[in-house]
């Protein structure tokens, strides 16, 4: 009886610590997000985020964002870069991933190793090279040059992941379709592609999100404020200690974070299978 009691006690103790940990972690996550978000609705020139609810609430910051700053331009620039990057990269990576999963050809293994190695090269660190290239091609301050770098840089890793996912689609399907007389393209488009939709969605989301967060190259290669992306633009609101526009920053941040988070949660179910299948198989 005594034993039973102590077991019960330790079970409720572990329950207590479980909930304590989960709640604490939830608070640590929500707190910074909440005080940033709430600052977007505060009137007056606030200089720091904090959790106070005695402010004057207003939507004025959003109006100022679009009338007094270049935020609209930045948003549009980033959207254009993100969408084009996403479309081109997903197309290229899908073709390459499919090929590496389905065909056996000379140089396959070697080039797969090559993808794996080149994937580790931190391309953004080749700042000077990109700068010189931009000078030669007249691409300084141009969106297309960034798109070009983002697309190329994402290919090796994502081809690996894509190939891993294609590997999970049984090859019998292709073979029976081949017996029915379907050609290369028809097997690819009509049989296999529909089965990898989850991974396509994940790849598209990541390719889309990357340009929103990339700072180093965009900061160095984009020169006029009208051509900035949101990451660089928003930083100009807070990196000048004399003239901080913290509330404007918060308002601008919300308009990015909310749509991206919604997309993220819509596709979140696909993440796990995409991640694990890509990592384990060669």
């Amino acid at each position: 009886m005594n034993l039973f009691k102590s077991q019960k006690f330790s079970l409720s103790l572990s329950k207590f610590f479980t909930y304590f940990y989960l709640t604490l972690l939830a608070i640590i996550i929500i707190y910074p997000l909440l005080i940033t978000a709430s600052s977007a609705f505060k009137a007056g020139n606030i200089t720091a985020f904090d959790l106070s609810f005695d402010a004057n609430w207003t939507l004025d910051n959003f109006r100022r964002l679009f009338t007094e700053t270049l935020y609209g331009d930045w948003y549009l620039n980033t959207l254009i870069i993100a969408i084009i990057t996403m479309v081109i990269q997903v197309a290229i990576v899908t073709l390459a991933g499919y090929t590496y999963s389905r065909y056996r050809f000379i140089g396959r293994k070697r080039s797969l190793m090559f993808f794996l190695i080149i994937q580790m090269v931190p391309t953004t660190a080749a700042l000077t090279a990109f700068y010189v290239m931009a000078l030669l091609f007249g691409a300084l301050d141009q969106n297309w040059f960034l798109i070009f770098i983002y697309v190329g840089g994402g290919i090796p890793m994502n081809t690996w992941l894509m190939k891993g996912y294609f590997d999970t689609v049984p090859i019998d399907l292709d073979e029976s379709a081949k017996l029915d007389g379907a050609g290369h393209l028809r097997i690819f488009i009509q049989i296999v592609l529909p089965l990898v939709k989850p991974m396509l969605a994940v790849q598209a989301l990541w390719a889309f999100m990357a340009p929103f967060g990339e700072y180093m190259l965009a900061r160095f290669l984009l020169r006029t404020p009208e051509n900035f992306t949101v990451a660089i633009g928003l930083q100009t609101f807070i990196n000048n200690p004399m003239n901080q526009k913290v509330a404007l920053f918060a308002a601008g941040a919300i308009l990015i974070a909310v749509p991206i988070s919604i997309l993220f949660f819509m596709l979140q179910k696909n993440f796990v299978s995409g991640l694990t299948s890509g990592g384990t198989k060669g």
Partner: protein
Amino acid sequence: MKYIELDLKRIRNATLLSIIPGLGQFYNKQVFKGIVFLSVFLLFIVEMLGFGAEALAGLISLGSTPGEHHSLFMLIEGSLQILIIAIFLLFYIVNIFDARKVAKLWVENKKVNTTMKSIMVNVSDSGFPYLLTIPAYLAMIFAIIFPVLVTLLIAFTNYDFYHIPPASLIDWVGFKNFFSIFFLSSYRDTFMSVLSWTIIWTICATTLQIVIGIFTAVVLNQKFIIAKRVFGIIFLLPWAVPAFITIMSFSNMFNDSIGAINTQVIPLIDSLLPFIDLGAIPWKTDPFWTKIAIIMVQGWLGFPYIYVLVSGILQSIPEEQYEAAKIDGANAIKRFRHITMPAIFMIAAPIFITQYTGNFNNFTMIYLFNEGGPGSIGAGAGSTDILISWIYKLTTGTSPQYSVAAAVTLFISAFVIIISLLVFKRTRAFEMED
């Protein structure tokens, strides 16, 4: 298969003739293929005479008259030419092997495609995989390989703020930049302290996010928990919200005098826990505390990815394994060590490694939090700069040191590649299936 003397001669002839691409194919009676190969060869000769030779000469001299010769453009055109030659060499080798292979087919009396139509059919069939990967290779050549090649070359020049074309010339200086980084005291000291902080940062921050991620996944995987989905969604938020936004917010929150951490969180902790009196912490002005803050914020940002990954793996472990272990008398800790951990590492080890290499080059976190500061440790680096943010400062500062930055870039690339290859070999995670 054994060949007689005559056959061997045929094969040798085809191989020797293909020293001029196309001739070997003509010899094999593949006229169409021969014409295509010969035209590629002629095209390359024309290109070499028209542009290539001059580009290579320019690459070697980097110009002689300031104002007239633009050393940078000469350097980049020269590297483009190197790339073209490399691609041609690849074609050249393929050409020789092709001639040899087809000659063998003739000798063995096997079917050889000689007409244009049958060759086209053959190309579209066996060439299909190559065709599909061409876009990937083109994009990688120009967005990765070419920049790396240019970086490699720049690292051996004296390109800096004293030498900015077209006003002045750039010259080759051999290993001078590498020598400065490793042996010259002004650069060496900075390099060594930036490198050691980069390694400490990578190990601490990444291990922290992995530990929190695994722990959270295991805790949340218990059956009795209510509102699992709510917690699950909250724990994903740091991943869902773009990192640059949260880093900039944290940067504001960790401000020494007005930030929320010092004005709200620490007073709250002090009042809740009677034995602790933290007081205001110099998060942004003391290098030690800045480092602590950066590592904690990265733990916050990075754990959801691991958490999602590990949750997925946990659900795939069959329940019977735990039941069997329980019957054998294994306690919770033993079950975790012998069932859960091996399962996680078997699947997730390669992803953990990419997390380490990712943080090694996590420019956004370091730069957006405190711009690598506080203070300076010489040669343009701040006290929390990691190698990649130092490169950024060397390149974008008021007195840019492009060539030194390029040398450091080469160092990081080599470092990251060697370390990850070693680990990949050990974990055997990337073994090919065939």
